[in-house]
């Protein structure tokens, strides 16, 4: 299959995945107990009660709930392609507007977290993989530990230690560069542990391969062997995981923004969940799904760059 054709296939698959995801969120909205109109009116009035059909009718009409289901579905999915994610139940604004500006700081946080995680994982792996027993054990224990830490735990510890006790960083940093350090670290450390484990396992496996011995027999020193030969092979699985990791980082971002009082979609999301504003939540979920899908496409590209075996048709 030619390269162009493969890219096309991947792009089409990505779009289909998004459509499927959108279908899930659409039908999720139908699961709201009672009717959606009831939920909206309850929110508006701050209390849960039964509403008469006459009271529900205008709400139903305004949001389009009185149309046949298939029309609603197609309208929803069609709207997505035009960038319309629906209307918020509580703010009566388009969801895209609600999410709008808040997306950028979250993306900054997430991408920053991924990059930092990679740097940390690479450093620990290169320094401690397959060396003296103590060093190796130290490295792998550190990774196992950090990989299992929940995001909020890392955040709280970092907050208490570095912002409250030793006042290096601000407790609530907003989007300032200095105030972004702790949130990014909070996201990066557990992911670095996870990626590091994967990298290390592969690194150690690769160092046992014959082609490494061949390099040594040519007179190559240990440090160069690791950098020139082993590294490229061992980052492959970690690259594959990075696509998924980006999606997982968004979950973490929600918590981190909440904890550090940072503006971003995390705040929007939590508020929306509290107010049962399903369209906003769905919208965010879909945006994240889109980010995940795009991230995976990019990951495939990067992987093919690093491992040319996948480039040509074999």
């Amino acid at each position: 299959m030619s390269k162009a054709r493969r890219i096309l296939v991947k792009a089409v698959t990505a779009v289909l995945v998004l459509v499927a995801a959108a279908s899930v969120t659409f039908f999720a909205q139908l699961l709201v107990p009672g009717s959606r109109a009831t939920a909206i009116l309850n929110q508006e009035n701050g209390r849960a009660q039964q509403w008469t059909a006459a009271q529900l009718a205008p709400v139903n009409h305004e949001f389009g709930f009185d149309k046949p289901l298939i029309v609603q579905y197609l309208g929803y999915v069609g709207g997505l392609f035009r960038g319309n994610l629906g209307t918020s139940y509580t703010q009566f604004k388009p969801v895209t507007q609600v999410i709008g500006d808040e997306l950028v700081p979250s993306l900054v946080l997430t991408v920053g977290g991924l990059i930092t995680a990679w740097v940390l994982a690479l450093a620990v792996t290169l320094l401690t993989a397959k060396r003296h027993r103590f060093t190796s054990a130290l490295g792998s224990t550190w990774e196992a530990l950090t990989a299992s830490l929940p995001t909020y735990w890392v955040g709280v510890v970092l907050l208490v230690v570095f912002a409250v006790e030793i006042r290096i960083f601000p407790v609530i940093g907003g989007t300032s560069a200095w105030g972004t350090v702790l949130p990014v670290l909070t996201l990066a450390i557990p992911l670095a542990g996870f990626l590091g484990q994967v990298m290390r396992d592969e690194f150690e496996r690769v160092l046992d391969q014959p082609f490494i011995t061949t390099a040594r027999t040519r007179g190559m020193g240990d440090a160069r062997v690791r950098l020139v030969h082993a590294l490229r092979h061992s980052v492959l699985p970690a690259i594959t995981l990075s696509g998924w990791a980006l999606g997982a980082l968004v979950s973490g971002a929600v918590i981190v923004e909440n904890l550090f009082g940072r503006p971003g979609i995390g705040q929007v999301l939590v508020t929306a969940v509290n107010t049962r504003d399903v369209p906003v939540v769905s919208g965010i979920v879909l945006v994240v799904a889109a980010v995940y899908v795009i991230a995976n496409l990019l990951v495939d590209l990067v992987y093919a760059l690093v491992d040319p075996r996948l480039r040509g048709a074999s």
Partner: protein
Amino acid sequence: MTTVAVPGASALARLRDVRFRIRPGTAVSSLIVLVLLVAVIAPSVLTHRSPTAIDLEHTLLPPSLSHPFGTDDAGRDLYTRVVYGARESLGIGLGATALAMGIAIILGFTGGLAGGIVDTVIARVLEVAFAFPVLLLALLLIAIRGPSVTTVIVAVGIGSAPGYARMVRGQVLAVRNADYVTAAGALGHRRSAVIRRHLFPNAMRPLVAVITLGIGQSIVWASGLAFLGLGVAPPSPEWGALLSAGRMYITTSWWLEIMPGMVIVLVALAVTSLGRTMQHQLEGAAR
């Protein structure tokens, strides 16, 4: 040395082959899990106080000998509350994991065994499911149904299922293509017998570690939701609820947030590590 031919001889032989290497990590993990189980079954063994005993003269005390985890804003001993919260937290963890693994096994085995179009459909479904991070899916469900213990269990269960399903499916596919499965077919065994005697046991085996990992992760996810104020609500002593309650005191009374968090982390680590050790033992015995 003569061996007696009893039906369970192979199982006994396997037990003999298991080498119990006592490593410090395993010992510590086992201890933690043991303490956890005691906390769940008989909390009064670990603490004489009551989790609801309010003492307004001793509010917000830092950790000390009499209050190892300090006290909260109502003077309740935090350590006691953590002990009593174990039951609910572990319950959530087990419930969510059971749900997740149930879904994962059904999807993974159906796809792996059936092959063809069924497997392709399931693989695509999983691909879509992966686009939803666990926490976000859980939040979506909570937005729809409102926060409650059941919703949390269902949310975390459904959210984490795709990851396990992919693992199970991969395992089933690997075993299905294994030489010993082909050999069994070549011997003349019926397909159903091959699935029952070879495929299922060998595919399920690595999942022991996955299940314990799942329990640890579920507890973490549930508490994460509570941290956001969307899980189990205070004044329940459930660990997540404790996290939620302690948030406003982070800068002043750090122990209210750090202590329950530490317990969650330790339990998750211990359960996962023990699971991995059990996994290695099982594989070591049979290999």
